[in-house]
């Protein structure tokens, strides 16, 4: 999918994406010539159709996780997976971060926890807080996590 600025006949540049609620997917684009900005809004059905393909609009920052599609799409049982998390370098999860993690569906929670943990370990972050989770979401493109 490409967006053209008609006035400038220039391809608009992807800026950011977000899932603001009700299943809507939003992506912002801007014209590199005139600076005009637009937002593309996909309805919940369109959003689910794309996510069902296991691809990400705007590109992937994080490598695809093992059974990522299964774990993000399928309504599975909470104890289906047991995820490895590196113990020796494990950062500390703050109460707020634990509370937020608890709102992630349990079928995918182990995978999400590992992603945040790896993010913190790779950056030398000792404490995972809601702020760190926000940064990771933005840096890694984890709108749904």
């Amino acid at each position: 999918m490409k967006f053209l600025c008609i006035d400038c006949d220039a391809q608009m540049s992807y800026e950011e994406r977000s899932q603001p609620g009700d299943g809507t997917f939003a992506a912002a684009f801007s014209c590199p010539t005139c600076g005009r900005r637009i937002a593309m809004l996909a309805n919940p059905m369109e959003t689910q159709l794309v996510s069902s393909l296991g691809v990400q609009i705007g590109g992937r920052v994080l490598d695809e996780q093992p059974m990522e599609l299964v774990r993000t799409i399928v309504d599975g049982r909470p104890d289906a997976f047991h995820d490895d998390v590196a113990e020796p370098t494990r950062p500390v999860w703050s109460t707020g971060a634990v509370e937020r993690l608890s709102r992630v569906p349990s079928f995918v929670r182990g995978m999400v926890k590992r992603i945040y943990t790896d993010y913190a370990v790779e950056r030398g972050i000792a404490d995972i807080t809601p702020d760190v989770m926000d940064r990771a979401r933005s840096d890694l493109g984890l709108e749904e996590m």
Partner: protein
Amino acid sequence: MNFRTYNEVHGEDRSRLLEQVVAQRTRVVDRMRGVERIIAVVSGKGGVGKSYVTAALARTLARERRIGVIDGDLQGPTAARLLGASGPLHVGANGVEPAMTADGIRVMSTDLLLAEGAPFRARTDGGERFTRRGIVEAGVLREFFSDVAWGTLDLLLADLAPGAHALEDLAELVPGLTGVLVVTIPSDESRRAVARNVRRAGECGVRVLGVVENMSGYACGGCGETGPLFDGSAGADLAAEFAVPLLARLPFVASSTRHADASQSERLTALATALLEVAS
């Protein structure tokens, strides 16, 4: 207003959706490098005992070979239970470890993922499910091949859902498919349904390795004699029509006795030998 085509606009495509899809396919190919043969077990309709044949064949082969089983019937999984496989599934750096049975068979099935009695369904459901059901199922099947740490296998059996669509998906997802093993019961109704699937296999460029006629008579648990169960000779008819071998005729064994089990075991051993020979 004149619009240029997508390919006439030469700016950066940051999403690289096509590359993401290609990467998914590449992961399947990479993972399957350690698997010597991949055989899909198919039928034309449900209820012919395809999962029974898959499980029995896997158990027989596992005595001397490294065997994996993918339960491709996502909506009605039975292979894990038939083989005695259970979770939870361990997720490591190399992917998801398959469930391991007491026979050493590696298994992946939606039965290991779903709550007891729960149907296979998407977590977020915005309605109009039919528009994406096929995409979801193909994606899950793809991850069963690409994201499971299968290791080195002599044979990976994929027990597919009844109907042609499952084989079509598999043929596109797994380029190295060795072939299909066709399961039927003796009835003419089954023959007609299975024949459609065999033709579809040919259209998909998938080799049909042979036919198994399941429930081919009724084996008495007491005297061991086999009597009639269904009218028809679908196994032999399909083998003749498509010029493929009839690899086995397996009777229905109602009660487990030493004699009946030994006889069925002999038939399964012969089937396993013949299948490996034709698939080599």
